[in-house]
């Protein structure tokens, strides 16, 4: 017998209503959005044929070096690959995870980034190029650490929870975290959504000048935005003096967010990049103020497509954690028993019970992640991604990943054509253009 079920009251919706009627509050989880939206898989590269010729793989050079923040900073970030590790807090992540990510970044000549809760000494030691976040919470914020950073990132919003602050459940607010953040032990931390010392874009300009003065105009200042009203926000951030703008999409990962914001706010990565690029072009700052894209970047193909659409670099979170063994059964772990789901379906970073020692503050669980082995895995993954980018770039007949452009792409769906502003395959038509 074939049974029909409701389109709108799917099994997931029914379960969600049950859960909320048990709980009496919104649901919280980690990982990223479960929405099925247009993404990089809906775009394809138009590699060479007779109209242009390819470069030889492995033999001919393909440049991946990336410079970020050269507009005002005496020492811009110079990375060997356009991929770096995004800000993930010590608190959401274990000390071993943070150390491994910093080490991995150094191994491949790229940067890593601190996160809510301050700069962890072992991360500072491990990461040669460390970006220091200035968040609304200012947990653990320290001008001594600021002066040691290679770049500064003012966080206005995150793609996984735009318009709200960070979140860390009490299970993770243990001794060290409560001390670093000046918070009572065991509280469910809900960070502020607004900065304590500035509100609008005019104030932001002064905040940027303050950070520049405090660091002698040496390091770049990034502004991170949750991708919502991208066009206006990017223009305002650029006018306020940002050297680089991070556009973090609705597909971005998180250690904990309300599910409703994960799934029902923000826009996908593809249109976010295009809108940001066009906004910078309109105010004459395209190529001067650098654009960094994040949210759901999983491979060299995703990164290459992001660059082709207009990003200068990409930042990765979840895929770096997956390289660290997130959602993989390892000796000692038992996902079904510990998380109630099989490896591959875990999104429970907020519980602090991570079976692979990544998203936890539990000492015993943390030991399941060896920072050196983890660093090697993440470095391998970053190298693999960079090689994938070069491979695609050479196949397009180009010798520099930064030469990728929208013209190299076609869309596989009408939606992707409209969002990426590239033609639909098999047509010359770019949807959404008047």
């Amino acid at each position: 017998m074939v049974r029909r079920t409701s389109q709108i009251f799917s099994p997931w919706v029914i379960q969600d209503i049950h859960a909320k009627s048990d709980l009496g509050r919104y649901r919280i989880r980690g990982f990223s959005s479960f929405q099925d939206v247009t993404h990089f898989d809906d775009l394809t590269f138009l590699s060479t044929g007779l109209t242009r010729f390819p470069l030889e793989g492995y033999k001919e050079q393909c440049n991946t070096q990336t410079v970020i923040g050269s507009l005002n900073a005496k020492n811009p970030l110079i990375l060997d690959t356009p991929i770096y590790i995004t800000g993930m807090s010590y608190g959401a992540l274990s000390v071993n995870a943070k150390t491994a990510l910093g080490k991995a970044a150094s191994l491949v000549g790229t940067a890593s980034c601190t996160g809510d809760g301050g700069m962890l000494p072992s991360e500072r030691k491990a990461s040669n190029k460390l970006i220091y976040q200035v968040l609304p919470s200012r947990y653990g914020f320290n001008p001594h650490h600021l002066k040691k950073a290679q770049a500064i990132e003012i966080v206005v919003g995150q793609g996984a929870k735009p318009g709200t602050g960070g979140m860390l459940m009490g299970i993770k607010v243990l001794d060290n975290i409560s001390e670093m953040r000046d918070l009572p032990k065991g509280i469910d931390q809900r960070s502020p959504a607004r900065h304590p010392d500035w509100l609008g874009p005019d104030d932001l300009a002064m905040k940027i000048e303050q950070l520049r003065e405090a660091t002698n105009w040496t390091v770049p200042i990034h502004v991170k935005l949750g991708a919502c009203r991208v066009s206006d926000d990017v223009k305002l951030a650029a006018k306020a003096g940002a050297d680089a703008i991070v556009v973090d999409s609705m597909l971005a990962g998180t250690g904990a967010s309300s599910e409703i914001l994960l799934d029902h706010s923000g826009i996908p990565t593809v249109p976010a990049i295009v809108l940001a690029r066009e906004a910078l072009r309109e105010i004459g700052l395209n190529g001067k103020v650098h654009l960094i894209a994040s949210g759901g970047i999983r491979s060299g193909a995703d990164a290459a497509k992001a660059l082709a659409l207009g990003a200068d670099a990409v930042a990765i979170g979840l895929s770096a954690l997956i390289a660290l063994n997130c959602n993989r059964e390892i000796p000692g772990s038992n996902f079904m028993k510990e998380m109630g789901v099989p490896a591959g379906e875990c999104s429970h970073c907020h519980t602090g019970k991570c079976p692979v020692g990544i998203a936890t503050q539990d000492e015993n669980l943390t030991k399941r992640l060896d920072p050196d082995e983890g660093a090697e895995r993440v470095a391998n993954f970053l190298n693999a991604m960079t090689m994938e980018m070069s491979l695609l770039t050479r196949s397009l007949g180009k010798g520099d990943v930064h030469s990728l452009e929208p013209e190299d792409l076609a869309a596989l769906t009408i939606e992707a054509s409209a969002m990426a502003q590239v033609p639909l395959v098999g047509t010359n038509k770019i949807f959404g253009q008047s």
Partner: protein
Amino acid sequence: MVSIDAAQLSTRELNIKLNALVEDNQDVKIINPRARHNVVVGILKKCQITVEGSLGYYCASLLDGPTVCIEGNSGWALGENLMNGVIRLSKDAGASVGASMRGGEIFVGRNAGARAGISMKGGTLIIKGNAGFLTGFMMQKGTIIVCGDVGDAVGDSMYEGVIYVGGKITSLGNDAKIANPTQTELSVIDKKLKKNNIAGSYKFKKIISEKKLYHFDKLERLEKSAI
């Protein structure tokens, strides 16, 4: 004491000059600051700086160690993220004075704008006059003493830390409550006021967190099993 006349200098030039003199262990006086922003920023050693005139946003911010005396008013975020040291302002402070400060002492000689001591994580903020709305908003630790009145929503969403108010409280913020200060607390306040040449008898009320916002009241199955 070495004087810097700020009138003809850009903010960059002024701070470079100031930093060099501080490095050279000189006491510095800045004249003609003309309410500019971002003056005396990011100095991380003990030193004595006097400013004759008013300052704009973010002045005497991101400091660890200096004693800064300002004869005038200040814009927003005076003493932001102070780690240690002393800031004395003779007149009025704009919004967010002492935002996210973690130590040291800030003294405001007259009134302070909105959000005084917002996200404060330590140290002491003393306001001789009145303070605006959301004083001590999301304050985490430290002490705020307001000798005059406070505006609406004082102590909203505060975690720890204490706010003492000598005058009228317009309204309490979310999760804030009034408690009775102890004799020991009152004598500590008294000492701090005397040290700042504040005479007068105040009937201080103490504001602390009710701690009702510390937790989500219900947990999901997995969170329960994790406790």
